């Protein structure tokens, strides 16, 4: 019973923290229709920036905000490659992801930075709230998640937010209404990657270290969470979409934890399972059309 509760609790924390990644992925993939793979690099970027600043004695709140800013900048770069140099969205993301690997190592100076002896925002909140362990993690991640939820729930309903959402839907029309869609794409890419970097900074501080490889597979994980969330919640309207991202991340993490309790699966198998999950989810609409003998457009390659 206690293990069941602790599994639920740890999934809850992870659902909140990685829900931020899911929302970041949602922003680019779904809102902008921009398959942005730079996420694999911006997650460790956020962790690296926060870890380095904290170890040099910077206030952990400032360090976390700096991590968010670094993600905004990285996403902005991906957007620039696509809108100003007309490199395909997919390749723009891959280029930034690859570049970030070297940049992250430069920032950290070594592949791993421990934060065990440093004062993180979790330690600060612990003093403040008198909590510890998993409940502390849940509260801190929950506050971050709530703030992001409230801000995006507002932003996506504003006139600018509407223009951003329409950009991924019918860019041609939005330009015809006087919107510089290059700018909305840049904004969306920056926001999405900013959130992912924020998640990286939180996770690094919670687990007590930043690692150069902690972003690997992050994009597929985020996508899996989005797909699960959409499948379970069938969200209509912005608020529910955002909730579905957190919910999807929670369910995804729960499944992954449970999978480890089986005898035949190892921790290292989880990425394979995640990939399989995404493949199945993406293939279903196509297979359904095959079965119904509907018209199927040619495969897209970008």
């Amino acid at each position, binding site marked *: 019973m206690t293990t069941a509760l602790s599994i639920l609790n740890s999934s809850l924390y992870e659902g909140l923290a990685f829900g931020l990644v899911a929302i970041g992925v949602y922003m680019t993939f779904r809102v902008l229709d921009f398959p942005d793979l730079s996420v694999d690099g911006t997650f460790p970027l956020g962790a690296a920036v926060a870890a380095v600043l904290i170890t040099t004695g910077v206030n952990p709140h400032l360090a976390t905000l700096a991590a968010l800013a670094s993600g905004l900048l990285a996403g902005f770069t991906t957007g620039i490659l696509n809108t100003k140099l007309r490199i395909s969205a997919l390749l723009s993301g891959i280029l930034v992801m690859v570049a970030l690997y070297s940049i992250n190592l430069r920032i950290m100076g070594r592949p791993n930075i421990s934060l065990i002896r440093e004062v993180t925002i979790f330690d600060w909140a612990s003093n403040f709230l008198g909590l510890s362990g998993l409940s502390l993690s849940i509260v801190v991640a929950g506050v971050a998640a709530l703030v992001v939820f409230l801000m995006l729930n*507002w*932003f996506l*309903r*504003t*006139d*600018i*937010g*509407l*223009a951003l*959402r*329409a950009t991924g*839907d*019918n860019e*041609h*029309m*939005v*330009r*015809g*209404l*006087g*919107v*510089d*869609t290059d700018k909305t794409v840049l904004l969306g890419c920056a926001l999405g990657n900013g959130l992912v970097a924020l998640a990286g900074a939180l996770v690094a501080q919670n687990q007590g270290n930043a690692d150069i490889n902690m972003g690997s597979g992050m994009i597929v994980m985020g996508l899996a969470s989005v797909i699960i969330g959409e499948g379970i919640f069938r969200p209509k309207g912005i608020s529910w979409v955002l909730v579905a991202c957190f919910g999807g991340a929670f369910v995804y993490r729960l499944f992954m934890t449970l999978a480890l309790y089986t005898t035949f699966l190892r921790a290292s198998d989880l990425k394979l399972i995640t990939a399989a999950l995404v493949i199945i989810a993406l293939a279903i609409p196509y297979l359904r059309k095959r079965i119904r003998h509907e018209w199927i457009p040619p495969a897209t390659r970008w």
Partner: protein
Amino acid sequence: MDTTGDKMVNLAMQDHNILELLRVSKTFARGTVDEVKALNCVSLTMAPGDFITVIGSNGAGKSTLLNIIAGLFPPDNGGRVVIAGEDVTNLLGYKRASYVGRVWQQPDMGTAGKLSIEENLSLALLRGKPRGFKIALNRERRRFFRTRLASLGLGLEDRLGVPAHTLSGGQRQALALIMATISNPAILLLDEHTATLDPKTARTVLSITDEIITREKMTAVMVTHNMEVALRYGNRLIMMHRGRVILDIAEEQKKGLSVTSLLRAFERAAGEEFTDDSVLLSSEL
């Protein structure tokens, strides 16, 4: 009826013309074997409230004309585009938006399918204006949208929250029409906007179009492949051929014209035999 493109420049070029195209040419793929002169020194003036219907065969330059007015690309050197007294020749792309509203042939081009009707209208309301951090939808806007949609008589005013992709082709074109006109751009461009609709729906959308243009006193250019439509609507008809305006028919003359006499006039103006496959004009509605 013998007005040619060059003579058409109004002698008294008044300031209050809505549109002035001055010696506008457009050459594509210049200097290659594929070089095409899509527009050949076209000059055209539109007074406020003018509703021009444009006909002409494929390749006559109708789309290029609309694209030049909409600012998709600039005319060749020397040509000028003046809208509402302002030289907008070099104001291209999204920067031209506040001057020009447009409805395209495909219903899915004029609306954002995933967004709701009211969200689409909110986007259109701020045509060409800076967009800020105010919540897009409020009671005041919704009330305004509802009255606008109610005038269509399609029942859309009760479906403000419905995603646009769930609407039928005709409903979507009607919504696109409202979106193109709601912020009162100087010119409305209609690019064969009923071509993909079934005949009955096309008639409905056309009469809605006419209603809106009359009520809002819009200045409009409508491209059509249908000669009867071209004759029935608008106060002026121009016929294009090989990048030139070869006929410009004013309201009084237009009233008495039939499809047959229009075809004869075209033959005379084009100065060549009018073979069936050289033009794709249908006379049925």
